[in-house]
């Protein structure tokens, strides 16, 4: 009960903070808009007619809106924040508190994620409606299920980012991990659906976490099927668990040898 109150309060305050600290939202919205507009035109040019690998133009645009939404939703700056906290020494305030640091960071970011999801979600839906209109045959009854998958996708991405960020406890320079990670997320599901990848790459990608951060929920939204749901959500749960365990392990290893800078 006490633990519940603790983490709930963290979530509440961080959500409050997200609403007060709005200045970075506007920039994000503009960026989102430009990004969607450019890719909408690109896809429209590619799609002269019909379907590509099982996606119509309408589905493709919605797909992109959803993967973008997930990525923007996760924009809590967890990676750079951790780096900065270690380098500036602010980490000293966060470590000697009676909570689990990893869960603290999670609930702290969750406020921002909920806020982002509301703002960018609205934006994504409006833009997709304007550009291509509704998805033919969309069933609202299955939306909550797709949203569960979307939530899991965000959590997986968040915990992998946190795991990368936590390496700052031991390493002076870890930005390279982040850049590589970002590119992989972009190529393996965010920018193009997994079905578009060459067969050999698809086969490898199936065993990586990346498609489960973007492709799985976006595909569920644009073409829901129970078969797909049961084949991706358990895998998402597995990756979620693994990403949490990875973060915890890196945290435990890192905190024992942390080099706190900044006087």
């Amino acid at each position, binding site marked *: 009960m006490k633990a519940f109150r603790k983490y709930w309060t963290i979530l509440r305050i961080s959500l*409050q903070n997200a609403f007060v*600290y709005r200045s970075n939202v506007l920039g994000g919205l503009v960026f989102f808009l430009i990004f969607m507009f450019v890719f909408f035109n690109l896809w429209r040019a590619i799609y002269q007619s019909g379907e590509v690998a099982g996606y119509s133009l309408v589905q493709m645009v919605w797909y992109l809106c959803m993967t973008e939404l997930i990525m923007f939703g996760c924009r809590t700056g967890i990676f750079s924040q951790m780096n900065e906290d270690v380098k500036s020494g602010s980490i*000293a*305030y966060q470590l*000697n508190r*009676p909570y689990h640091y990893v869960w603290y960071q999670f609930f702290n970011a969750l406020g921002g994620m909920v806020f982002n999801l509301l703002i960018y979600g609205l934006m994504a839906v409006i833009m997709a409606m304007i550009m291509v209109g509704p998805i033919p045959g969309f069933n609202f009854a299955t939306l909550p299920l797709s949203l569960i998958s979307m939530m899991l996708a965000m959590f997986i991405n968040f915990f992998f980012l946190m795991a990368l960020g936590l390496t700052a406890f031991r390493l002076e320079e870890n930005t390279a991990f982040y850049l590589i990670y970002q590119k992989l997320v972009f190529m393996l599901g965010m920018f193009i659906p997994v079905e578009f990848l060459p067969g050999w790459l698809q086969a490898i990608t199936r065993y990586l976490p990346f498609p489960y951060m973007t492709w799985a929920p976006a595909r569920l939204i644009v073409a829901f099927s129970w078969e797909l749901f049961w084949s991706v959500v358990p895998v998402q749960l597995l990756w979620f668990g693994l990403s949490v365990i990875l973060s915890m392990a890196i945290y435990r290893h890192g905190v024992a040898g942390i080099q706190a800078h900044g006087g």
Partner: protein
Amino acid sequence: MSAIHVENLSKVYRTRIKEEGLKASFKALFKPVYKEVQAVDDISFTVEQGEILAFIGPNGAGKSTTIKMLTGILHPTSGRISVLGLDPAEERKKLSYRIGTVFGQKSQLWFHLPPIDSFVLLGAIYDVDKKTLNKRISELTELFELGDILQTPVRKLSLGQRIRCEVAASLLHEPDILFLDEPTIGLDVVVKQSIRQLILRMNRERGTTIFLTSHDAGDVEQICKRAVVIDQGRIILDQPIKNLKYHYLNRKIIAVRFEYPQHLEVPEGVKLEKSTDISARLSVDTRICTIDSAMRWLIAQGGVADITVENPPMEEIIASIFRHKEGRIQ
């Protein structure tokens, strides 16, 4: 029981050396070269419950490293620490309920939210129940005169107001020991004074043990009964503040500028350290000549345009500690 007990504590940092040039950078990629820095070097001391201890030294002496080890953030390279009977590195979480920390140069408050929100969050983190928390907040509001600023976003507070909130924030869970790392850094004289008063009151009214680091001799003089002086990771002095004051904090520096050229004949206890026609830097031995009489004498010279009175910098105090020690050995 003593509040803090430290035995033969050492901390060695390992940092990577980066040589200049592309070739060296490339080599470092495969075979990094490390340099070891001894931040804290075999120190031992004890702090009794209810004591106010000043831990002083110049920048980079190892003060913050020591505080971080005492609070469990850094793990010592060797030696033993006991804080309230706990081992900070092993029992960090348990210890965290019983200690409070303030790092003068960092903030624990949410920058965009009013301090009250941070207080509520900290209350939840430390499992303080709502009723007790509200009571604590109103007590601290009164003691620290927080009034209106409790509802003002932190980014709009002055540094002095913010530090008052920072100190209050670290007292919400009624810690037995309060660690203050440079709490008065960057504050003006008046605010410094009020923070010092608050710390003293906390100690008197609640019996909170206070461990304070500072490179400001003023902090130490006024609130501490005992001082440990640390330089390059080693303790060079551990004495009651009375001794320190008499032997090493007995000087003030007066810088003065005149409107027209002056020739100064200094009285006893005053030393002319540097001078030009129209300015001078004087060192006053307050055991012989009080600041009051030194100022009277200066004003009597006529034509004073500007005066500042300062404590000698920490580095000078340390140099005189070393001189004193050597003098005794010879």
